[in-house]
């Protein structure tokens, strides 16, 4: 049971933005939901899977976002309501299918939720999914608070059915992962039956075949849908205005920026000077609604995150309607009032507003601010993110690093997306040298591996996680084998999609609904492709290192090393100590020649700390998870481990 389903209509609950989206989808009677995990979107599919039984939902983690969208499309084509969820980069992956889907149209309500990550809080990009809506000519909705996250999701299904087109609901990290109270609506009783019709007139949207051709005709149909959406958006209740009839400044915003803007106006006490137009339907924009508000002021500020999507679209409408509404002064990304990178917050809006409105604003007394800043510098040492205590990646990268140093030919590792991305930094011994999108480590390596004819003699490695392997590495591996590229791929198999919270993937024996499924073995896939495959436990440090050196020296083609060890936070390892570990003070030589604080200074498991007074290493009982691997790195054998019975 979950508070997402058992609470009745009218109940007020504190939910995360992603949970609000889940409730909205449930209230819309969603039948099929698919997705690929990615922060900040993962909780949506996770929560749906938890409640799947009762309303007869089908929920799956798909192998990647493109397949997820295709799986959900099948439901829509069969007149079911379908939801597909991904983080922004997933839209890039899915976009080829999305382009064709937008051309073919849909049947049952089809909503794609994308969660963008402005400021890249847990991404390596701050890509924009909003532009896909414009590029692919499909409607885009952006909730401006938690209640809307629910209500808009629900409405998006209706809209999709009305337009016979997929509808995008776009959230951002601060919406998806923030929480607020919302009031629940009714859960529907209607049960739909899946049926795919194809034998009517070929071009009939409900009975024909579903394709994006004849292209010219279908494209016209598609644009007709977008015109219809624009009409509907003119009266959409998700576009709201608060402020004076004729404001000094009209602030147009959407999404989380609406909350920041509202806060900024409040902090500056500028409620009677600033009009706040919050757009819930950001593509296509309703021209009449905008003309009405634009005509009541001379100055317009647009507040949004990253690229000037809203700003440009508003400016086009303002230019087209300039004769009626007059010429405006715009403040936004283009003139530098609002930054064009990173996430927004109330303070950035306060700064923008106070400069445009000429308000003096000092958040804290100057002296306090100075003192506080000085204290941070003097007394709050920076806290980098590190691999967890007991993390298999620390051990894996220790061995990869050592193998490459010992090999001594400037070998390097192409990185990929997952927790192990942190191996760019010192927690992974600065091992990764390139980092891009899912699966691109293996792809780039495949290319590097062909540069021998231009004199490159550096060993080429790539790493990927187990989930990433299925998502996008397989084609790269096939490419490398087919093209006889000489590379070593290290698969960090920690039994789950650890980064985003252990979602099951095709390598496991169960799916997200808890059903037994056949595990798809990475080793056998690689062997099938034609690679040499080795499997090691990364906690066998020396064995792993030796194998790696051997593979690196083997010039016969593609080699795969699978490092198999469950994540320290995984359900099977969490809260379970394999060893009790302590440092024998009489043996530890600390800073002396022969060690030089190897455990704390180099290996860096947070479970090991340095007692400066005693000049000895120590185990922090609260943090150590008892994996025992550090006993093998101490040159003196001072770290003692005893197996826990």
């Amino acid at each position: 049971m979950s508070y997402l389903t058992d609470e009745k209509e009218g109940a007020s609950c504190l939910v995360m933005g992603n949970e609000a989206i889940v409730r909205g989808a449930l209230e819309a009677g969603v039948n099929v939901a698919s997705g690929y995990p990615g922060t900040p979107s993962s909780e949506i599919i996770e929560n749906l899977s938890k409640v799947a039984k009762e309303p007869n939902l089908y929920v799956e983690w798909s192998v990647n976002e493109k397949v997820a969208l295709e799986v959900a499309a099948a439901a829509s084509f069969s007149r079911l309501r379908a939801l597909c969820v991904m983080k922004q980069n997933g839209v890039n992956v899915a976009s080829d299918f999305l382009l064709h889907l937008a051309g073919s149209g849909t049947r049952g309500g089809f909503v794609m939720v994308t969660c963008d990550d402005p400021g890249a809080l847990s991404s390596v990009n701050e890509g924009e999914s909003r532009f896909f809506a414009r590029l692919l000519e499909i409607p885009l909705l952006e909730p401006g608070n938690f209640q809307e996250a629910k209500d808009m999701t629900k409405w998006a299904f209706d809209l999709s059915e009305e337009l016979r087109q997929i509808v995008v609901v776009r959230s951002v990290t601060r919406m998806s992962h923030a929480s607020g109270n919302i009031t629940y609506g009714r859960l529907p009783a209607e049960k739909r039956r899946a049926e795919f019709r194809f034998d009517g007139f070929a071009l009939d949207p409900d009975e024909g075949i579903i394709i994006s051709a004849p292209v010219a005709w279908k494209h016209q149909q598609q644009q007709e849908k977008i015109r219809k959406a624009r009409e509907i958006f003119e009266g959409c209740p998700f576009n709201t205005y608060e402020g004076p009839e004729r404001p000094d400044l009209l602030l147009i915003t959407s999404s989380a920026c609406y909350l920041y803007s509202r806060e900024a106006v409040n902090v500056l006490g500028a409620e009677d000077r600033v009009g706040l137009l919050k757009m819930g339907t950001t593509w296509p924009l309703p021209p009449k609604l905008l003309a009405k508000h634009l005509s009541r002021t001379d100055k317009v500020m647009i507040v949004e995150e990253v690229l000037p999507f809203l700003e440009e679209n508003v400016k086009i409408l303002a230019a087209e309607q300039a004769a009626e509404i007059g010429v405006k002064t715009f403040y936004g990304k283009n003139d530098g009032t609002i930054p064009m990178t990173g996430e927004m917050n109330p303070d950035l809006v306060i700064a923008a507003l106070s400069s445009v409105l000429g308000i003096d604003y000092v958040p804290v007394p100057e002296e306090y601010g100075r003192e506080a800043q000085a204290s941070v510098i003097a007394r709050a040492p920076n806290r980098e993110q590190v691999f967890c205590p007991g993390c298999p990646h620390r051990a894996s990268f220790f061995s990869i690093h050592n193998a490459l140093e010992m090999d001594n030919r400037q070998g390097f590792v192409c990185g990929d997306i997952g927790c192990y991305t942190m191996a760019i930094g010192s927690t992974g011994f600065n091992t990764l040298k390139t980092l891009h999108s899912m699966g691109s480590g293996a792809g780039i390596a495949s290319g590097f591996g062909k540069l021998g004819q231009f004199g490159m003699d550096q060993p080429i490695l790539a790493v990927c996680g187990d989930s990433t392997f299925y998502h996008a590495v397989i084609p790269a591996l096939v490419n490398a084998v087919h093209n006889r590229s000489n590379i070593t791929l290290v698969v960090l198999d920690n039994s789950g999609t650890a980064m985003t919270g252990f979602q099951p993937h095709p390598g496991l024996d169960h799916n997200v609904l808890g059903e037994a499924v056949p595990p798809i073995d990475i080793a056998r896939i690689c062997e099938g492709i034609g690679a040499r495959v080795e499997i090691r436990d990364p906690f066998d440090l020396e064995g792993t290192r030796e194998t790696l050196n051997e593979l690196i020296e083997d010039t016969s083609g593609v080699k795969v090393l699978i490092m198999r060890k469950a994540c320290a936070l995984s359900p099977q390892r969490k809260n379970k100590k394999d060893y009790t570990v302590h440092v024998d003070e009489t043996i530890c030589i600390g800073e002396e020649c022969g060690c030089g604080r190897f455990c704390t200074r180099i290996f860096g498991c947070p479970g090991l700390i340095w007692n400066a007074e005693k000049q000895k290493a120590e185990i922090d009982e609260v943090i150590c998870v008892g994996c025992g691997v550090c006993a093998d790195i101490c040159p003196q054998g001072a770290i003692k481990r005893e197996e826990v019975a």
Partner: protein
Amino acid sequence: MEKRVIRRGQEELKKYVLDARLCTGCGACIDLCPYHRSHRGKTAVLFPCVVDEGRCFAYCPKVDVDLDMVSRHLFGRPYDGNPLGSYQSISATRAGGRLKNVASQAGGVVSALMYFALEKRYVSGAVLTDRRGLLPLPRFVTVPQDVLACAASKYTAAPTLSALNQAVEKGHRNIGLVGTPCQVLAAALMSSNPLKADDCVNPFGLVIGLFCTWAIDFRLFEPFLAGRIEIDRIRKIDIPPPPSEIMEVFGDSGTKLEIPLNEIRELVPNGCSYCIDMTSEFSDLSVGVMEGHPDMNTLIIRTDRGRRIVEEAAQEGYLTLSALPEENREHLIWAAGNKKKRGLSKARGEGMINTQGNETKSYLRISAEILEGLTA
């Protein structure tokens, strides 16, 4: 005046030796700690170390070597630049008795002496160099029979001293060592307690040095030979004395490959070209091939400890001793002097020699006078 602290740690070792391409991979800095590893003949630094004064630096024969200090420590007198170093006597010799037919390099004297020393417990174990294919493998052996398994020269530069460091770490003392001149110099540095540690003990029971003009870089040698001969089936490699100017590689099925030495010289580690020692001057005993007699050895006795063992071994028939013809002696002096001059001139030309005193410049410390004399 502020006293300048001279760091003698890994950072300096890396700067003056590894980055300057002086390293010969001797193994003296390996297995002292987790920072240095040797792999396929190359010494690698895995992580930066912050110890100010370290054994890696102190033991390395390619950095800040104080020749006077070493000579005083071993022989009780300053370094005088004699081409053959300090010694008591030179003889011609070969293994005798039941060790006569061992598959050794020349006269088998090295193996015979170490076998004897181990059998009589003059040493408790021996650090030697075995091989797999062309890859030299450091070994610590404790039974005499295993000495014979390591006989014959591996011309690839070897990290032999890593096995010594491991043995010392495990508590072994009174260890025998067979090494090339750079390794023997490192051993001398080790025994001199360069860091003035209270708990330092001299781990050596007997140091036998080999004559050496240069070694070969394994990582270049292996691809060089690949395709010419089956590497796993090489039985022996030899360099017959001048004027032949070839290297002979024997396969196990009687095949023989002859390679001109000027091709081989391309494969010599850069570090060897700075070496000023041909006869392992800082050993107890030094052994080389006797010119004109490929089945005999030239033996230089340098210390009392070495002399006693040689005499006993001869008495018990482990080796036969005879006088070395004057002509051979002169040629040896000429060749050793040449090597000294070449190495010193090169190092001096590159500003690596410290004649002033206490500042770490790099490579060698030597008095200005002797330097002049040797390079004139």
